[in-house]
């Protein structure tokens, strides 16, 4: 596992909000073609890290390297164009758009024709548009929302909206997919399905950084994992080694950390 | 004489909107003129006129629509309208294209009348204030004069220029030229500024609302010298509102209840008071004149009146018979300045001839 090349590297990244150091000098690496877990207590700075990687915030300090590029001061859309795509912890779909349109928007980077060509309706652009539609439908099917293409996304239930978000993030054929608690609000079976999807995606060459509180899922589906606490690195390694780390136990699992609770029940 | 019957005249009024106060006056003057004409057969034996009303709320687009509708209505023989120049400017091409006589009763601008369809019953601005200023300059011999004007209104800018030229000619120093805007409401700043220059005479050549505001502000700040202004403070409602603040301030005009004593004026004032329970003002006099101008043209027609014939006859008129000024000349469709009265409000709430105290 450790011989695969690095795709994403954080070097002493810090982010301060006023007096609060949401991230305080975090260094870690994500290797190509792996599923990397990012875990830690609430407020540890996980979401902030994702925001920093996607350029919604800029680090107060340190640097982020992705696939040979320094992401410093790059605006979000340029970072996305480099091949980073994400979902949000609090689902953020475009209101007024159908499920299909959401995913289609996600395909923007891979539209294959210029804005003007598509406006002018040139034949090639038309073909591209149809391809993007077909791809979006496929992606919807992949997250289990095949029948809901025309449904106004905001009328879907929470769990369903999360799936649309994943499909939307996949639209741009990213190299790195950042998932912020993708299974929050899903039951065991549904989480497993998402886990399977994540594995399939990895096997097709995608790298995934996943924030998750469901430790069963992390142990089962992550290849490696970073644990944060108070914006700093607490532990790093395989999921198992992280979980067994006594410091992690204390910070993350609290007092009753019997391993059984972590295992999928049943 | 024209063929008997009822004929329609369109008025594009300003009954609502920012200039409604004056607009309603024009409209009422026109209404009274119609009544008088129909009662006395001024437009010809058996001829009655009927006023069709469309309110523009002083909005150019609405005025154009109203004018187009009148143009489309073949029963409309003539139209009258317009307080402000932009609307008059927008309506005259329609009048010309549709051969529809248009009498402008409020807006003034050089070159507005166009043969033969567009005519104006208001004189170009200036001469009256010039006459008044000449009198003020000779009687008061002011050393320092300050001027207020409305910077976004061409008519009042022109008036202020004319007035200033008179005083400068007479050797008065111009100590301040302060411009305000038509929509301003706060005049403490301009008043303070004007008084800071210590003028002995202040000439306020602005539109109505600012004029009243400036005069109030000057008086409240304790300015006691002479203020001169224009007919904008003549409507009785202005006196009702401002009372003693505008007493003794001279202004020039051609029609004023109490002073205008021609038979027409007396009848008009009585009828107006009976109908609306208040005194008419210059604006209603202009609305009145506009309709009489049309009626006079009608009367000159032989046979079935048409727009073309009416326009032709109106263009020929050199003097409007029924007017409230004791004489109203017209040259090429443009009214000339009628007799001028220099007056002020006195402490009895009446308008009296102005005298230097």
């Amino acid at each position, binding site marked *: 596992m450790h011989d695969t090349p690095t795709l994403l590297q954080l070097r002493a990244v810090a982010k301060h909000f006023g007096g609060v150091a949401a991230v305080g000098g975090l260094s870690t690496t994500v290797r190509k073609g792996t599923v990397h877990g990012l875990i830690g207590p609430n407020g540890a700075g996980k979401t902030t890290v994702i925001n920093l990687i*996607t*350029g*919604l915030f800029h680090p107060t300090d340190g640097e982020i390297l992705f696939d040979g590029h320094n992401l410093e001061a790059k605006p*979000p*859309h340029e970072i*996305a164009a480099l091949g980073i*795509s*994400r979902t*949000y912890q609090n689902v*953020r779909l*475009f*209101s*007024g*758009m*159908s499920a299909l*349109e959401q995913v*289609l*928007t996600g395909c*923007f*980077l891979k*539209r294959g024709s210029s*804005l003007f060509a*598509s*406006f*002018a309706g040139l034949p090639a*652009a038309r073909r591209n*548009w149809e391809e993007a539609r077909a791809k979006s439908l496929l992606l919807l099917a992949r997250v*289990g*929302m095949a*029948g*809901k293409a*025309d*449904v*106004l996304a905001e*009328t879907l239930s929470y769990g369903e909206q999360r799936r649309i978000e994943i499909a*939307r993030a996949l639209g*741009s054929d990213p190299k790195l997919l950042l998932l912020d608690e993708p299974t929050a609000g899903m039951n065991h079976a549904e989480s497993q399905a998402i886990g399977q999807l994540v594995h399939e995606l990895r096997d097709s060459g995608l790298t995934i950084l996943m924030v998750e509180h469901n430790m069963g899922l992390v142990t089962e589906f992550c290849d490696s994992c970073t644990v944060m606490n108070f914006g700093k690195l607490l532990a790093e390694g395989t999921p198992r080694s992280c979980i067994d780390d006594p410091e992690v136990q204390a910070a993350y699992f609290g007092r009753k950390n019997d391993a059984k609770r972590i295992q999928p029940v049943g | 004489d024209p063929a008997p019957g009822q004929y329609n005249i369109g008025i594009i009024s300003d009954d*609502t909107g920012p200039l409604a106060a004056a607009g309603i006056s024009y409209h009422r003057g026109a209404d009274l003129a119609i009544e008088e004409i129909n009662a006395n057969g001024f437009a010809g034996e058996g001829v009655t006129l009927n006023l069709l*009303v*469309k*309110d523009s*709320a002083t909005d*150019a*687009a*609405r005025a*154009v*629509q109203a004018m*187009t*509708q009148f143009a*489309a*209505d073949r029963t409309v023989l003539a139209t009258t309208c317009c307080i402000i*120049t*932009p609307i008059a*400017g*927008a309506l005259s091409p329609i009048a010309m*294209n549709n051969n529809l006589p248009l009498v402008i009763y409020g807006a003034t*601008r050089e070159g507005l009348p166009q043969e033969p369809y567009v005519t104006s019953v208001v004189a170009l601005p200036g001469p009256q204030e010039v006459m008044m200023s000449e009198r003020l300059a000779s009687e008061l011999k002011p050393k320092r004069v300050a001027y207020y004007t409305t*910077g*976004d*209104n061409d008519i009042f800018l022109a008036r202020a220029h004319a007035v200033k030229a008179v005083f400068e000619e007479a050797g008065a120093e111009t100590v301040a030229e302060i411009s305000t805007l038509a929509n301003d409401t706060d005049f403490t700043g301009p008043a303070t500024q004007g008084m800071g220059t210590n003028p002995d005479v202040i000439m306020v050549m602005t539109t109505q609302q600012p004029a009243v505001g400036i005069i109030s502000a000057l008086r409240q700040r304790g300015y006691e010298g002479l203020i001169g202004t224009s007919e904008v403070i003549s409507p009785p409602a202005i006196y009702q509102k401002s009372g003693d603040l505008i007493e003794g301030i001279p202004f020039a005009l051609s029609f004023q209840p109490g002073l205008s004593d021609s038979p027409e004026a007396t009848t008009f004032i009585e009828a107006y008071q009976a109908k609306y329970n208040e005194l008419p003002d210059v604006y209603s006099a202009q609305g009145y004149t506009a309709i009489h101008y049309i009626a006079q043209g009608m009367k000159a027609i032989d046979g079935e009146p048409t727009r073309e014939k009416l326009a032709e006859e109106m263009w020929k008129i050199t003097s409007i018979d029924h007017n409230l000024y004791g004489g109203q000349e017209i040259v090429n469709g443009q009214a000339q300045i009628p007799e001028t009265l220099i007056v002020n409000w006195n402490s009895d709430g009446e308008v009296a001839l102005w005298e230097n105290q």
Partner: protein
Amino acid sequence: MEAILDFWAAYSATIAFGLVNSFIALSCYAVLSAGVLSFTTVMFAAVGGFVAAQMIGMFALPPLVAFLFAGVAGGVAAAVIAVIFLRLETHWMALASLALVLITRVVVLNTPTLTGGVQGMLVPVRVSVLELFLALAVTAFVFYRMHNSWYGLVSRAVREDPSVASTMGISTYRVQFIAFLISGAVGGIGGAALATTLQFISADTYFLALAFTMIASTVLGGSFHWFGPIVGAFVFTALPTTMQAVLPEIQDVAKGVVLLVIMILLPRGLVDPRVLKLRLSRSPKTAEQPDA
């Protein structure tokens, strides 16, 4: 036939203003649909109007040709404005654009050689309703194409949530810049259309009343689809005339009440694509719920 001709003669001006206001409303919609509430349309219209008036006055151009120049001039003005305005955030942008409307008026009043200053300007040519209609049809077609292209999709995304859109590779700046260019061009044409319909323009022609007409038409018609502003412009233009015919005494009050009632019944405007989508959502094919 007679009746139709009479109706046409009487209401052709109303229809003409409906067409003119459609341009103005579409210009407002162009930026609104990319998430920018801006009154700069008024300024673009002024630029277009005076450019067209000058061109017609100097070179006796036919109106439609003058419209082209007006559109280009509006677009250029928009490019300059966009560079400044896109630095601001939404609410502040709305104010800045209002400020620009006031500045425009001052500039118009004080450049008499270009605009006639306080005197205003006569426009010697009147555009025909047919010409206006043609110009609007072309413009509407452009909006139709845009709506159904990547630009349309992406601008809706930017309007709903610019930061999410940006993490999907969409440059908010670029989308909104394009929106401004379109708004400028269409606004310029609208200003020229207004000039050649009124035949007399001055500082007051392109002032706050136009901003009100523009925003009211757009929202009344529906600000989520390009067809909305056109419908809104016609309704808003015809409203005073209709009310005057029906209730002359209280025409303005009646106009306000009608506007109010429409907004309360259809708060998202007369044309609302969302309603259509909701209906689609309910079609039996898609209403199936996933099984556990």
